[in-house]
Every structure is written in structure tokens, then in C-alpha cells.
């Protein structure tokens, strides 16, 4: 590995080019700041790159537009700023220091960036659950399968068991069928389906059985999944002996929630707090999305697991605040911030967002 000979100085650096990061970039560019976006992937967009479904939420956040189309809009918005918005793709941030020095690796070269302002929009990672042989090839996170199919056009297998009935589990089940893969069953440990019923009905109409109070007991196979054993759960969520059934599948999709990717926040010394409702450790942010480290902001799923719609609004807001703190005047700032906050409030208003509201309440953040 070669060493970069010098430290690059940058004004505003955004780590993570998903919906939150791209919107933050736009706010900062609009205000006149020079922006550097870092992402470890070749293609920018985070999980939007594979979201073929139409969004819910509000019209302002592109409801009824497909994720992949929203991404085109977001990238196009940034194009007009030309070199004001620098993009470092295929670049991994490997260290983040208290003095806002970012250690990066790109093309096997190591270099450092000293930033005046940093926005962390690293998103989240998919969780797993414990069961026998849960590490066999063929057992993938549901979002991973979505990436494989929708971004690269490769089927994960022929027969799939989906574990978890949240929106990702339901939507990915439908998208598996669109790609020509059979979804044999969907199991949910809770007594009821946890995602939107409109998504559940869609796959039920296509003949997918959704079994509640059911979980995977073990996967069977030598080098990869050949079969799975399911079992029913009792009221205390314990597996019931004697209720086992075997299914022939070659793929198991795990869709049991996400956890915020807060490692960089911890490295930089930002205070984090465990909030179960938000998916795990989340940064303590103030109402301006600033962490406990001055000049370091966080937005999107890394602040708590929500929908991409809210991530976009949070991104736009954190970008405005970061630009202001860098000394830029933002046209109509107060009105813009107020409108975005109301937008966020609306997105978090339904019964499905009760958990999110409780989470931010615990964190002490006004929403």
C-alpha cells in the first residue's frame, strides 16, 4: 500500500452517498460550500440503487416514484454544481480522528483529508438471528439478495424462504417473484405481520403463505443450504418441539431489521446511546443534527432506522446547518428549515412510526 505524501484540506466532507448523504451534499452546494462525498461503492446512491419499488411517504419526498428513479434525480441535482461537488467513490474511510482528520483508502492508496465539517451518513447494516447453521452459504440478508438481483441481475437461487415480515421482507419477496424466483414461504416470529398490509396482501395474492408465530429452527446442508426446518413459537416466543416442518429451499433471506453503522461516530468521539427503538447505538445529536463533536453531523439511518424518505429530509437539514456553521448565508433559511421539519413530522406521524417517535423521545431529540 502506498502512502499519500500530503494531507488534503477540504471544506465539507460527507461520508456515505445514500439518500441522506446526497441530500446533504445538495444543501451544502446550494449554500456555496465545497463538498467532497466519500463512498466505498462504485455507484453512488446507497440502497436506492436496488430499490425498484415505488416510495410511500409524501409527495415532496418522491412518493410513488421508484427508488432507482429518485436516485437519478438526486444525482442530477448534484451535477449542476460541477467541481464544487467532488466525488470519491470506491473509497473506504478507515479511520476518523477527533481533529476531523479522515483516513481513506482508494485504489490501494492511503491518504488523509482534513475537513472543516463532516457529515456522517453511513446508514445501517442488516442484522441476523441465531439458529443452527445460520452461516451456511445460501443464507443471505434480504437486502443483499435485493442487491444481487436488482443491481447485478443475478438470481440468489430457485426456492427461497423469507424470514421476517417487515417491509423489507415483504417487498423483497415480491421482487424475488418479479425476477422469476419462487418464494416458498414467509415466516414471522411475532403473532402478526409487521410491515404494511398492502405489501403483504400483494404477495399473498400471488400465493405466498405467510406463517406468523413461526421461525426457522435450523438450516440443513453441507456446503450450502439444501433444506430448512421451521417450527411454531409459543406465547413466550419459544420453539415448540413436535411442530417442526421441513422445506426444500436453496436460499434463506433474513429480514429481521437493521442496526445503525455508528463505528465512525464512535471513533471520532461522538457520544452514542443505545436506543432499541432506533435499532441500536445511535449518536446523541442536537436539533441541528450536530453530534457531541463540534462540526461533526449525522443524518439518515445512522441516527436511527427509518425510511429513505426521512433520511432525505434529515440529509437536507443537516446540510443546511453544516453550511450555516461554516459561515454561509442560506437564502430563506428559517422558512426552509421549518418546512423540512414539518415534512419530517408528517413522515413520522402514522401508527407505524410510533416506535421511531418513542426512540427519539428516549434520545431527547425533538421531532
Amino acid at each position, binding site marked *: 500500500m502506498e502512502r499519500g505524501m500530503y494531507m488534503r484540506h477540504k471544506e465539507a466532507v460527507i461520508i456515505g452517498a445514500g439518500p441522506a448523504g446526497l441530500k446533504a451534499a445538495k444543501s451544502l452546494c446550494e449554500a456555496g460550500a465545497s463538498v467532497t462525498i466519500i463512498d466505498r461503492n462504485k455507484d453512488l446512491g446507497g440502497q436506492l440503487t436496488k430499490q425498484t419499488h415505488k416510495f410511500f411517504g409524501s409527495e415532496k419526498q418522491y412518493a410513488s416514484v421508484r427508488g432507482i428513479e429518485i436516485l437519478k434525480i438526486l444525482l442530477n441535482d448534484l451535477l449542476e454544481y460541477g467541481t464544487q461537488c467532488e466525488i470519491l467513490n470506491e473509497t*473506504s474511510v478507515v479511520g476518523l480522528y477527533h481533529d476531523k482528520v479522515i483516513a481513506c483508502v482508494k485504489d490501494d492508496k492511503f491518504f488523509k483529508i482534513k475537513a472543516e465539517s463532516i457529515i456522517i451518513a453511513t446508514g445501517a*447494516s442488516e442484522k441476523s438471528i441465531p439458529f443452527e447453521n445460520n452461516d451456511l452459504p445460501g443464507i443471505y440478508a434480504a*437486502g*443483499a439478495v435485493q442487491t444481487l438481483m436488482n443491481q*447485478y441481475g443475478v438470481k440468489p437461487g430457485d426456492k427461497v424462504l423469507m424470514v421476517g415480515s417487515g417491509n423489507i421482507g415483504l417487498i423483497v419477496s415480491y421482487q424475488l417473484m418479479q425476477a*422469476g424466483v419462487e418464494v416458498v414461504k414467509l415466516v414471522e416470529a411475532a403473532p402478526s405481520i409487521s410491515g404494511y398490509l398492502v405489501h403483504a396482501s400483494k404477495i399473498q395474492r400471488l400465493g405466498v403463505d405467510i406463517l406468523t408465530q413461526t421461525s426457522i429452527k435450523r438450516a440443513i446442508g453441507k456446503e450450502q443450504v439444501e433444506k430448512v426446518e421451521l417450527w411454531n413459537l409459543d406465547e413466550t416466543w419459544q420453539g415448540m418441539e413436535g411442530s417442526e416442518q421441513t422445506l426444500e429451499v436453496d436460499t434463506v433471506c433474513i429480514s429481521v431489521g437493521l442496526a445503525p453503522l455508528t463505528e465512525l461516530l464512535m471513533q471520532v468521539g461522538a457520544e452514542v446511546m443505545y436506543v432499541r427503538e432506533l435499532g441500536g447505538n445511535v449518536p446523541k445529536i442536537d436539533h441541528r443534527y450536530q453530534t457531541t463533536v463540534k462540526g461533526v453531523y449525522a443524518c439518515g439511518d445512522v441516527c436511527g432506522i427509518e425510511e429513505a424518505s426521512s433520511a432525505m429530509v434529515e440529509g437536507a437539514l443537516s446540510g443546511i446547518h453544516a453550511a450555516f456553521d461554516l459561515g454561509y448565508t442560506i437564502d430563506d433559511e428559517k422558512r426552509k428549515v421549518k418546512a423540512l421539519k414539518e415534512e419530517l413530522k408528517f413522515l413520522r406521524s402514522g401508527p407505524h412510526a410510533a416506535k421511531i417517535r418513542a426512540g427519539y423521545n428516549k434520545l431527547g431529540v425533538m421531532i
Partner: protein
Amino acid sequence: MRVNQHPILSFDTKEEITFTFNGKPMKGMMGDTIASALHANGVKKLSESIHLKRPRGFYCAIGNCASCNMIVDGKPNVRTCITPLKEGMRVEFQHGKGHVYET
């Protein structure tokens, strides 16, 4: 294992890329990552656990979990799920931890 027909997406036939897996020639497509190309060739086992040597495939497909680490062109611990496939790449199964290498 490629998606042939899709109601929303179109996966037109793209330029083919030749690479090797453990010395065996394989074909992928322009736009593939190493892991997606291997999967399309039916290769699901990408690595093994360090101590018990249990087979591992990818898990997250977005560069988080390290379950897909392989040796690529002599370099160990390459996250094959986010590394674009390139013509002539030598992809090898990685046994255990990676070794220190020179570029």
C-alpha cells in the same frame, strides 16, 4: 442464474468479462462485482470461517460483513461483493486470515 425477464428492469446482454476462479476460467459480465459473477457461475462458497473452517457465502452484499473476503490478484481480504469484476482477474479462495502482501 441470471435474471432473464423482469417487469421493471432490463438486463441487456453486456460485454463479457473473463476471469479465473482457483485457476478455472469463468465468464462474468460488465457491471458485475466479483461476488455476483461467481454467484452467476453457481459458486456460493466464497470463504471459510477462520477457526472451524465452516463454509461462508456473502451475507450483506454491500461491503459490511467481511463474509465474502477472497484473494484477488494475490491480494487477500478483498471485499468481493463491492469490488467490480475486471478482465483477467485471478480470484482465489482464501483459507483463513490473509497474509501481508506487497503492491
